[in-house]
């Protein structure tokens, strides 16, 4: 059953094209631009009372990156509909105050590079801009396995909608 649930848990599958910056983990110029999140004032569909909107610009390769606040700490994430859960790198999990030991990595998930072990966790609150989602199931990857933390479906499916048009991804609470 675990294998079934984890069947598409991590399908983050990113080609390396930017060379040195990517390998060193340094943000590229387009990355920085892409991470700027802003509350929309563009003519988007009618906004319901109390529903927040966040806009993200496409970064390199068309991916969408955002700054997420997890347990009060800022973490860079990539929007990934192919990831079942929010997936945190080991390092980002530590920054968010989640200290794990090897016995916590109990769940097997299928990735594009074979089966990986992850630590299932529940995040009290995850915010992007004005959008906040509470009690989000997430998984922490083993040290060095995952390059970027992923904003997977456990977060995305709690939004009322998210859509991409002309290179802008709009998330609506």
């Amino acid at each position, binding site marked *: 059953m675990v294998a079934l649930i984890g069947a598409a848990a991590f399908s983050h599958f990113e080609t390396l094209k930017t060379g040195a910056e990517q390998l060193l983990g340094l943000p590229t110029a387009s990355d920085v631009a892409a991470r700027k999140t802003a509350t929309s004032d563009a003519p988007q569909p009618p906004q319901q009372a109390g529903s927040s909107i966040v806009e993200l610009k496409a970064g390199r390769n068309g991916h969408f990156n955002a700054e997420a606040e997890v347990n009060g700490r800022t973490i860079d994430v990539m929007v990934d509909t192919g990831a079942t859960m929010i997936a945190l790198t080991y390092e980002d999990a530590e920054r968010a105050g989640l200290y794990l030991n090897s016995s916590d990595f109990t769940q097997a998930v299928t990735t594009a590079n074979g089966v990986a072990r992850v630590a299932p966790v529940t995040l009290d609150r995850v915010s992007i801009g004005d959008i906040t989602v509470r009690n989000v199931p997430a998984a922490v990857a083993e040290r060095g396995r*995952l390059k970027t933390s992923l904003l997977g479906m456990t977060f995305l499916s709690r939004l009322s909608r998210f859509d991409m048009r002309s290179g802008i991804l709009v998330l609506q609470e």
Partner: protein
Amino acid sequence: MIAWLLLAFLVIAGVLLLFRGDVQVLSTMDNTEIAILAAGVLLIAVYVLILLNDERSRPLRALRYLLTWAAFGLFLVTSYTYRQELSGVVYRVAGELIPAGQTMVVESEDKSEHAVRVRKRFDGHFSVRAAVNGQPMLLLVDTGASTVVLKPADAARAGVDTRDLSYTAPVQTANGLTYAAPVRLRTVAIGPLVVHNVDALVARPGSVNENLLGMSFLMRLRSYEFSKDFLTLRG
């Protein structure tokens, strides 16, 4: 016979009464509208006459038949009035009945735009049935994948020579670095939505268990929208 004519007259008078005796309404109608109205009134009159003739001794039953038809007519008119709202309901019902991955063509205001809709899978992901180089296959919609990614078996079906692949493209996964073989697909089509010359990667045998519809395809669309249980792709 005179009784029937009297009845027909009463029915017509009744219809006129609907306009609250306002003959002005009739004078504002053009000939076609008057003709349609007259035909309608005549049909109703004929039906009422036949009914009264058949059910001469059972007036209650005649009344029941009349009311049934009136209710049916009202239902049709109401459905027609709310056809916009109902089309949403029809889509939802159709969406529940079709298997996940099966795409529905959605009408679009813009004639040059094609739109398809697909329902969420039971595990919360979205997959679509697409034709890759004309061969049907399921792909998982994955904004975290840089390109379309194919399993070797499906790549072979799509006409890629899998014996002659070089796994040279480094790929970052959730489980470390791996390599895949870059190829170019002639067409990736989801219903009427067709994208030509799509960059793709063929994964090593056994490494992925699903094909991925990644950004090399999604970037070429005008828009895609995830809304509750449905994903709508427009291109």
